[in-house]
């Protein structure tokens, strides 16, 4: 059984309600985009979990490397001035 006979892998994203972001919910194999949408509807929205579906070929996703985690994200740890709670203001304006 060779790999190129396998349908490609797709990642499925669902908008659970109007007004919310699409969120990753799982994966599936399908021959093309239309079939991926159809299968995603059958598998991931059997109990009205979604009002909109995105499907993306898994091999089209570019992802950060876990070994770069520290280099990418640690520099933000000491930038507490980016958060509103960093600023202590007089009581009169504290709900600013």
């Amino acid at each position, binding site marked *: *059984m060779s*790999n190129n*006979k*396998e*349908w490609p*892998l797709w990642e499925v994203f669902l908008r659970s309600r109007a007004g919310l972001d699409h969120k990753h*919910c*799982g*994966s*599936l*194999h399908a*021959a*093309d985009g239309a*079939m991926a949408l159809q299968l995603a509807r059958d*598998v991931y929205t*059997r*109990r009205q979990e979604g009002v909109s579906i995105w499907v993306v070929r898994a091999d089209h996703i570019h*992802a950060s*490397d*876990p*070994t770069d985690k520290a280099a990418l994200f640690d520099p933000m740890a000491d930038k507490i001035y980016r958060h509103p709670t960093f600023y202590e203001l007089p009581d009169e304006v504290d709900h600013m």
Partner: protein
Amino acid sequence: MYTQAMDIPNTDGPTAVPAINEQAREAEFNERAGRGEIVEAKDWMPEAYRKTLVRQISQHAHSEIVGMLPEGNWVTRAPSLKRKTILLAKIQDEGGHGLYLYAAAETLGTSRDQMLDALHTGKAKYSSIFNYPTLTWADIGVIGWLVDGAAIMNQVPLCRCSYGPYARAMVRICKEESFHQRQGFDLLLALSKGSEAQRAMMQDAVNRWWWPVLMMFGPHDKDSQNSELSMKWGIKRISNDELRQQFVDATMPQGELLGVTFPDPDLRYNEARGHYDFGAIDWSEFWNVVNGHGPCNKERLQARVDAWEEGAWVREAALAHARKQAARVAAAAA
């Protein structure tokens, strides 16, 4: 459970002993997993952890898919349209469970076709419970009540397992399982209020399924080969014997409501332990079924192989169509 064969030795051969620097990495990994940290697909992990997960998750997936067969046997003979639609929905859920789990296993670098090939050639196991026949309509109720009930006991702790994709698949599955158990109990409740013959049919189903259901939890802790490592890695959280006891304790009052008895003369509440005692399990039957000699092993595997082979032309045609469409779009754009 659905992954009972995790308790028997791995036949893939031993995992190579890691080099010294790998050992230090592994010790650090074990420590993190022990603390309850979540491991994701692209994170470094010891080869043995990856192998154990692939085995466990694929066995679990195979069980969901093979588990559709005994119930499928009753779709056309369900006693009403309502029961038929419920049963169809339940079986469809199980197909979905298989899909979520195959997808979780694929994140570990094994392909769907490799896993199916292992199932079809008999290399990979699925739960022993699905090698028993569904002889009457009451069996469908008992499967929902006891088989899905036992599965829930096992699956809830897996929602906290250390491997992220597996844990997330289990969360999704557990949300759907409660309907499975409730529809089974509801079906039996209807039988319990029915005729003498219907009550006898229910009792007969309980008699046949009770011991195989207790076997679902796998061998006793002292005989379970891979439990310790799985516990250390946070893949397994509660032992086979503990889960089995929880299940028996939870089931007794439910059986009373249905007015059924269980085929075990030693089954009684033990005040001192605060738990139900139960009789000795016939492990020779368990091993017999696990090793391929249960009442339906051959039939189940053949049904899976036939479905795969008879569907081959559909898979190929869909792929050929997709490639043709893509080529047309590309040509039009050029």
